[in-house]
């Protein structure tokens, strides 16, 4: 999909490991992009470093969204795609937290575009972004209850009385 730039990937990983040490939990290559899993406490600092460093210059937030792996201890996750226009290089950052503490720092101070993405992630996964200027639902109705993209959320509309398991395979 993208041109793999091994030298840039190595440089990025070296810099982050040097700067944040054990906070960089893992890295892997998938779909022509490097993924780095970071400790939640270091998340904002890592993104800021990637943004401010002149050699890396990840100044563009491609996308941001939530993940839910109910079987894992840290069930809720966030995945962030960054793009460096100067290097034409992309990177994926993942960070995880528990169901009980669904908080991540907001990226709106670095990327204004994170505003709506974080609202969407709050809307669908119930992830709270600390420091977001106005974290309200964006796609679902305002008085919606629950977070529909969590795995334990039932897909079907729960207000139907005329559909049951025997006929509709619910």
């Amino acid at each position, binding site marked *: 999909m993208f041109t793999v730039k091994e030298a840039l990937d190595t440089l990025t990983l070296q810099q982050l490991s040097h700067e944040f040490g054990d906070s960089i939990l893992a890295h892997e290559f998938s779909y022509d992009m490097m993924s780095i899993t970071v400790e939640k406490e270091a998340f904002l600092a890592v993104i800021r470093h990637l943004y401010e460093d002149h050699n890396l210059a990840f100044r563009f937030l491609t996308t941001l969204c939530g993940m839910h792996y109910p079987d894992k201890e840290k069930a809720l996750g966030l995945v962030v795609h960054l793009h460096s226009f100067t290097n034409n290089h992309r990177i994926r950052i993942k960070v995880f937290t528990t169901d009980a503490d669904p908080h991540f720092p907001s990226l709106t101070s670095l990327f204004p575009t994170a505003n709506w993405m974080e609202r969407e992630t709050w809307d669908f996964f119930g992830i709270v972004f600390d420091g977001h200027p106005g974290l309200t639902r964006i*796609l*679902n*109705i305002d008085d*919606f209850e*629950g977070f*529909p993209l969590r795995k334990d*959320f*039932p*897909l*079907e*509309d*729960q*207000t*139907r009385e005329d*559909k049951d398991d025997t006929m*509709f395979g619910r």
Partner: protein
Amino acid sequence: MIEFAKAPDGYSGKGFFVTSFEKAIGLARKNSLWPLPFATSCCGIEFMATMGATYDLARFGSERLSFSPRQSDLLMVMGTIAKKMGPVLKEVYIQMAEPKWVLSVGACASSGGIFDTYSVLQGIDRIIPVDVYVPGCPPRPEQIIDGILKIQELVGKESLRRRHSPEYEALLNQYDIE
């Protein structure tokens, strides 16, 4: 051959015709419906075919679509209504002047259709009263015309006092309107 709407029952003689206001007004109303098309998906495309030359809804006096709710008397809801669209649809209905009728076209508008999911309204009759339902996914233009004819039947026979009756008020109150 052009067929005109039949005159209602009444008494006629040389140079005069007598009938009740109710029948005359019913006749006028049913043959000059101004529909407001609220088309959100594929049923709307079928409606376009219904309005086109082949099926020609104008034959039934409904060629004048009104895109202002204030000047229309038939709300045609055609397509999936997301829950977020619900309040918008209700507002449009409230803005229409009495007397007004609602035609729910297709499975989605009538029951949510295949979209049995958290984000889709499971039938518009949860937020506004519906007069006629047209089944289908999507219904063919013939079915939509059939729905319009059913609406015309209702319009032609409606008592002039119905909209002032306590039953009608109770009906609207069920939907928290007025």
